[in-house]
């Protein structure tokens, strides 16, 4: 090491490959360069100017910076292409021109290796922002192709705050080049990225996805980064990389300065080498002197070997679910339409409130992973699955298990998933193995393998082991770590075959014993099919399965008895150390299963002397006061003496009308209107549930599509409109925010919807509204359009071609009545 040359072309290719290859296997250190931006500013770059353009306009300055790092002993120099994507460059230059010039600058400096630099796009990805994952991927892919054409040796993807964006960049490298990608994310002092990702999540996700190295750069000084790098170490199956800033920046006399000098910096890096970091360099504020100090440090050291511990681990963008050997985990099974009427209805209608409620309830009840299944024959499973994943990411931090049989659905969901998902499932059939195993390998997912194949489900434990062997042979060949493979020995009904339970337990034992490192999972409740009092049988079987070595149970965590088994097993297995969790949660329990699960807010009986005793009066009052809590009870009482039509037409609707009048008159303001709508909704739900029990059809006044238009993520106004329309008995298809014109038109045509409500908050998104209306006119001339939103006026509405302008939600409800009535 330490070989330096001023002319990259004279260096032998053998040496060239050797150091990089050794570094990639963790056998050698690799030293990157230091800051580019702050060095260019020191040479006169104006603030706010695109630094990448200097590669074209003043290449000698860029080369000078690179050369100083080469002279300081850097093995790798990073091209000046941090923001060189098509979007940021705009008209100024093409991506290809910049990368070509940038790599040339680096080569001219005599760099041993040239790393093509990929920084964030500058936009926020959907669903929080408006940039689609595929569009982010395309921005990166163009950079990757340009860098490869220009002759870069490797990629460094850096300063990422959004795991989805880091994933898009890494996939772009993997799918458009043969070169290794080093990926670093940037963390705040709280140990999370701006989007909440932890070092553990970043390391697990990106190393599973095939990053050549993972790590941390920017934002913090080396002292602050060190503990974060240590947190990453046990989760990275590849070399660890750190490029810290030279301390935290501050402004002195109008100039941004960094305080940590070369010696102090190298001393902090020394500690990180002890923790297993093998790829280092510097970020903002570091100089050639910092790199020289690191060179001196590395030359006296050898890399520390790391062995990531054996554990099953998956993660969402903010949290890891991991199981050490011997620990057990719970996968919530409720988001699956099979045999669940309400879930079917939710997936069909596109109103996912019920799905979201199930997700939240399962997380609260102790689920550690959520299974998500959108398999209904009459829906677009792929689109619904993707939307569900987006929405679930908004309400739960639990990692998701993507449950689908169609490989295209699985791929669509896991490709952009910000984390490491669990795929459910592959099986022993050749067709399944060849379609699904490569997906898990390519996207770095854990994988459930069902022990069935072309011959069905083997009747014996040995037969199931044989299928499991076949699956594991395929995953081994694809390079999927054993800990990421989870075998499902398939629970069968004890009522039809009483030997079934023993066979399953034996199969679990065999799989664990014969296929070392592999984990097991089981959907438990099939076992009790056809028997009375199923929860008891399920619970007993679950305990037996844990005893046989089951790692993950797919159950309904809302069933107290099942979680009781899980919690008590964790005491018996030693997983719940000192029984701390158990004692805390069970000390007050007098019976194994209370008859009723105490519900959250709302269930508590609110006794209020000020409320009228007459239930009809009380319900009216509750709507006017905007109190949803006691509403369900009041409505149930109303229904004791009256039918559903009375409850709706004589109680709820008049109360809502009164709320509308008060809002118009200004005696109510917006939060009051909404609180009332919310209370009324609680009442409608009681009426609807009662109606379903009696077989009476729910009142349906017609369907309205609502959304916020493309490019706009402001959805408050749209949400208010939705609430009110639902209150008045309209079926609302809420397409969400940032919705493309094609999506709106597609749904309107498919469902033959007669009214669409479009919302826009910003002047800059009004054109998207006009576009949407134009497309609707073309494809769905029958559909009327009502528009609203902060910047809208009647004149604007007319200009964009809308049929109606609504100044607020109550007016939209009136218009809907007029159009659909």
């Amino acid at each position: 090491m330490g070989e330096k040359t001023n002319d990259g072309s004279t260096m032998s290719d053998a040496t060239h490959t050797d150091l990089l290859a050794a570094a990639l296997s963790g056998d050698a250190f690799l030293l990157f360069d230091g800051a580019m931006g702050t060095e260019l500013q020191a040479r006169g770059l104006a603030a706010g100017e695109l630094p990448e353009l200097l590669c074209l306009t003043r290449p000698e300055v860029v080369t000078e910076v690179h050369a100083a790092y080469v002279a300081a002993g850097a093995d790798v120099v990073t091209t000046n292409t941090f923001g060189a994507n098509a979007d940021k460059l705009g008209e100024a230059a093409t991506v290809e021109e910049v990368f070509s010039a940038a790599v040339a600058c680096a080569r001219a400096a005599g760099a041993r290796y040239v790393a093509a630099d990929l920084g964030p796009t500058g936009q926020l990805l959907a669903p929080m922002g408006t940039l689609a994952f595929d569009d982010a991927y395309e921005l990166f892919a163009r950079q990757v192709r340009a860098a490869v054409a220009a002759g870069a040796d490797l990629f460094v993807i850096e300063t990422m705050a959004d795991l989805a964006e880091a994933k898009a960049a890494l996939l772009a490298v993997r799918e458009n080049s043969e070169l290794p990608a080093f990926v670093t994310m940037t963390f705040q002092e709280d140990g999370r990225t701006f989007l909440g990702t932890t070092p553990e999540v970043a390391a697990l996700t990106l190393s599973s996805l095939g990053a050549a190295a993972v790590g941390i750069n920017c934002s913090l000084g080396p002292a602050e980064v060190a503990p974060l790098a240590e947190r990453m170490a046990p989760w990275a199956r590849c070399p660890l990389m750190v490029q810290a800033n030279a301390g935290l920046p501050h402004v002195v006399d109008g100039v941004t300065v960094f305080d940590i000098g070369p010696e102090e910096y190298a001393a902090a890096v020394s500690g990180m080498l002890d923790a297993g970091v093998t790829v280092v360099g510097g970020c903002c504020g570091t100089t050639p002197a910092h790199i020289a100090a690191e060179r001196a440090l590395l030359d006296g050291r050898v890399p520390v070997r790391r062995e990531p511990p054996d554990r099953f681990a998956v993660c969402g963008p903010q949290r890891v679910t991991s199981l050490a050997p011997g620990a057990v985990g719970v996968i919530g099974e409720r988001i699956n339409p099979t045999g669940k009427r309400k879930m079917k209805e939710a997936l069909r209608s596109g109103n996912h409130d019920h799905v979201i409620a199930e997700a939240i309830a399962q997380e609260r009840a102790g689920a550690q992973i959520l299974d998500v299944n959108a398999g209904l024959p009459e829906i677009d499973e792929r689109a619904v699955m993707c939307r569900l994943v987006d929405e679930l990411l908004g309400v739960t931090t639990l990692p998701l298990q993507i449950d689908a049989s169609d490989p295209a659905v699985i791929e669509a969901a896991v490709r952009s998933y910000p984390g490491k998902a669990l795929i459910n499932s592959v099986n022993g059939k050749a067709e399944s193995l060849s379609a699904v195993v490569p997906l898990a390998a390519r996207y770095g997912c854990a994988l459930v393998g069902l022990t069935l194949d072309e011959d069905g489900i083997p009747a014996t434990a040995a037969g199931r082991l044989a299928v499991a062997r076949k699956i594991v042979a395929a995953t081994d060949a694809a390079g999927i770590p054993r800990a990421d493979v989870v075998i499902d020995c398939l629970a069968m009904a004890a009522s039809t075959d009483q030997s079934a339970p023993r066979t399953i337990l034996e199969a679990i034992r065999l799989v664990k014993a014969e296929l070392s490192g592999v984990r097991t999972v089981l959907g438990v409740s099939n076992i009790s099919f056809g028997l009375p009092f199923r929860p008891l049988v399920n619970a007993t079987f679950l305990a037996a399965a844990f005893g046989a070595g089951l790692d993950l149970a797919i159950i309904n965590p809302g069933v107290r008895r099942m979680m009781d088994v899980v919690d008590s097993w964790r005491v018996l297995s030693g997983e719940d150390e000192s029984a701390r969790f158990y004692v805390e949660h069970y000390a007050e329990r007098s019976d194994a299963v209370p008859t009723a699960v105490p519900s959250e807010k709302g269930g508590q009986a609110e006794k209020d002397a000020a409320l009228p005793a007459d239930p009809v009066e009380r319900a009216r009052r509750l709507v006017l006061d905007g109190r949803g809590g006691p509403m369900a009870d009041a409505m149930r009482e109303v229904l004791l003496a009256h039918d559903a039509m009375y409850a709706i037409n004589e109680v709820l609707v008049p109360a809502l009308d009164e709320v509308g009048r008060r809002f118009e008159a200004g005696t109510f303001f917006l939060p009051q209107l909404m609180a009332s709508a919310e209370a009324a909704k609680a009442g409608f739900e009681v009426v609807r549930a009662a109606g379903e029990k009696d077989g009476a059809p729910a009142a349906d006044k017609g369907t309205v599509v609502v959304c916020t238009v493309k490019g706009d993520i402001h959805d408050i106004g749209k949400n208010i409109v939705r609430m009110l329309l639902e209150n008045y008995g309209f079926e609302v298809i809420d397409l969400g925010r940032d919705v493309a014109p094609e999506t709106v038109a597609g749904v309107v045509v498919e469902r033959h919807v007669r009214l669409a409500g479009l919302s826009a908050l910003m002047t800059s998104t009004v054109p998207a509204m006009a576009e949407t209306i134009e497309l609707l006119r073309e494809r769905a001339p029958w559909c009327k359009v009502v528009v609203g939103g902060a910047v809208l006026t009647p004149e604007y509405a007319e200009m964009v071609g809308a049929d109606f302008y609504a100044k607020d939600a109550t007016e939209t409800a009136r218009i809907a009545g007029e159009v659909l009535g």
Partner: protein
Amino acid sequence: MGAAEAYDIRSVDRGEVLRYLGYAGQKLSPELDGRIDETVSHCLGTARPAGCVRVFDVSGVAEKDGVPVIGLAGTALELRGHSIAEHLEGALAVGVLAVTLGMGVEVELRRLSLTDRVGQLVFDAAGSALVERAADAAEARVVAAAAERGLFCGTRFSPGYGDFPLATQPTLLATLDAQRALGITLSPELLMTPTKSVTAVVGLFGEPKEGTGREACGTCLCRDFCLLRRSGRTCGRS
């Protein structure tokens, strides 16, 4: 990376939050009243207000296509339009600021949009009031920087006001390195995310400006964040 500063903001004016909600003296039920208070403190607990501030000398005022353009020394930033020219008329330097409440607020707004739409409305209003407080805090840094140089501040003015174009945003944010320092991203429609973010410029003048509210500390929005008052000074003439 640009220098960012976290602002410790522990309260927000409840009246301000109500104003964002369109309140006009309606009688509130105790439930709603309590819910608003809860949501406001939830927002305060979720937000991580932070900002970047830099001051640049005015390098010149030119006219391009009949529109005045103010240049700032050492930057690629150009402040275009009649409104900003009028607002900054006579300014010797300009403070450029960006503040945000962070992605946590954005994530919570999205969660609420899926689970609790009344909560979303109130949380959003609380965030709007809070981010203005963060902008006050950032502006106070400009006021202090001005006082250091014996200059006096005007009030802040944001892209999108008058004919000061929103198209200023990309360069303004880049000048502060606000994506790296604060995590502020910009969509093609020039929408900032986190949405609870504010960018603005503030003029620094040789003479005190009228009508800024800075005539007395009692009427100054930056009062709670003032760096001068701590050392017993004011930004006023005396």
